[in-house]
């Protein structure tokens, strides 16, 4: 394993161990996920809006804002005892620091999605059938993109006075496109349409991932320099 990935994994493992010990962010995100899904379910007028029509938006709104909790927490961990300065002092490359945070955030957001997806199926009474694996693919593609951008903006926001407010303001305009494509693909999958209908959305999501993961990796070193 190269130094880049070894250092990235060391950092991600540390973040996950801290989260396992404290469980603060995971529990908050899990409770948030359950509550938002319940609000969507019970706030819906069943005579006016079919569950399947509301479900894609509910799913992506829930996961997006639950992910914000993870992204906010990623660099807040480093504020304790100014540990981030220690990371910058270390010989680990800036790229490995970004990748470590990205991997930690992906595991965290992936865990929330793994918890939220069965609840979503249960609450909205949707039948996934053969759409389950394609939907997991859409989730994965969309999550990689917005977590990469979110990790970058989280590093930027953490040095501001109102980091928790700044992150959504900075991030949401950038994640609208993948959320839109993911919601469109989810709508098609829940309606049991053929996979060929979501191919365009998948291509856009994949292209977004490639572009924004690369740009985030390249920009991160400049963001953390004083």
């Amino acid at each position, binding site marked *: 394993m190269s130094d880049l990935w070894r250092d990235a994994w060391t950092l991600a493992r*540390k973040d996950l161990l*801290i989260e396992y*010990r404290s469980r603060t962010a995971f529990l908050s995100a899990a409770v948030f996920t359950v509550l938002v899904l319940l609000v969507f379910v019970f706030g819906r007028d069943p005579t006016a809006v079919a569950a399947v029509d509301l479900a894609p938006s509910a799913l992506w709104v829930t996961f997006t804002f639950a992910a914000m909790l993870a992204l906010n927490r990623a660099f807040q961990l480093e504020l304790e005892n100014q540990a981030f300065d220690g990371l910058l002092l270390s*010989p680990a490359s800036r790229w490995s620091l970004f990748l470590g945070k990205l991997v930690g955030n992906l595991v965290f957001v992936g865990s929330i999605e793994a918890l939220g997806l069965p609840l979503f199926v249960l609450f909205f009474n949707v039948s996934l059938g053969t759409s389950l694996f394609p939907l997991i693919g859409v989730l994965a593609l969309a999550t990689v993109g917005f977590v990469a951008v979110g990790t970058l903006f989280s590093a930027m926001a953490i040095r501001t006075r109102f980091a928790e407010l700044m992150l959504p303001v900075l991030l949401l305009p950038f994640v609208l496109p993948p959320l839109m494509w993911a919601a469109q693909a989810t709508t098609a999958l829940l309606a049991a349409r053929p996979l060929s209908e979501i191919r365009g959305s998948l291509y856009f999501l994949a292209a977004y991932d490639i572009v924004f993961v690369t740009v985030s990796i390249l920009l991160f070193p400049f963001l953390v320099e004083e």
Partner: protein
Amino acid sequence: MLRAESLRHAFGAARALDDVSFTLTAGRTLVVFGPNGAGKTTLLRVLAGLIKPQAGAVYLEGGRSAVGWIGHHAHLYGHLTVLENLQFWGALYGLRRVEAERRAVDVLTRLGLADRAGQVVRTLSRGQLQRAAIARALIHDPAVLLLDEPFTGLDLAAAAEFRHLLAELAGRGRVLVMATHNVEEGVELATDVAFQLAGRFVRLEPRGGRGAAAIAEDYRRTVTGV
């Protein structure tokens, strides 16, 4: 070897570094005295590579891997134990797990903190936290140690042991740069002494045989101009 050449840096109108130059070879200890706001911490941050100076350059054999930092913040994670923290930082400096653990035990024993190795950092007292921070800075046996008011929070016995440890490190050829406003704290370790005022080294000379009282009197005259 550590060399600073014509370092200049300012925060707005406030000059933090003004044409600072020096060279330290193996075994030399430079103690920089100066009042609050003189630019001592900025100097150390520039030497460590945390701040890029607006002019001038730092030459450091071994790059970032060669630097150890002890400052106002511990750079430790509160939810991890002392040993887990040291293993994490050791891994980032390229130490294998077994080697990091061995070094951690050695350093903690030396600092009188071995019995706290399994204790979660956020439960340590201020003095214990500072000793754990010292252990973190020494985990990779750095060739250059940068110390920013390092005795803060240490009781008399711990401060004496730490002074002894620093003298031993200098005796083993390590380069030390210590910034402090307290002449009593650092002078006995110094091979070279600098007085820093408004970013500028107004005095930089070998300590010679002068004791704390003589240097304190020089420093008082330099600062007050009387």
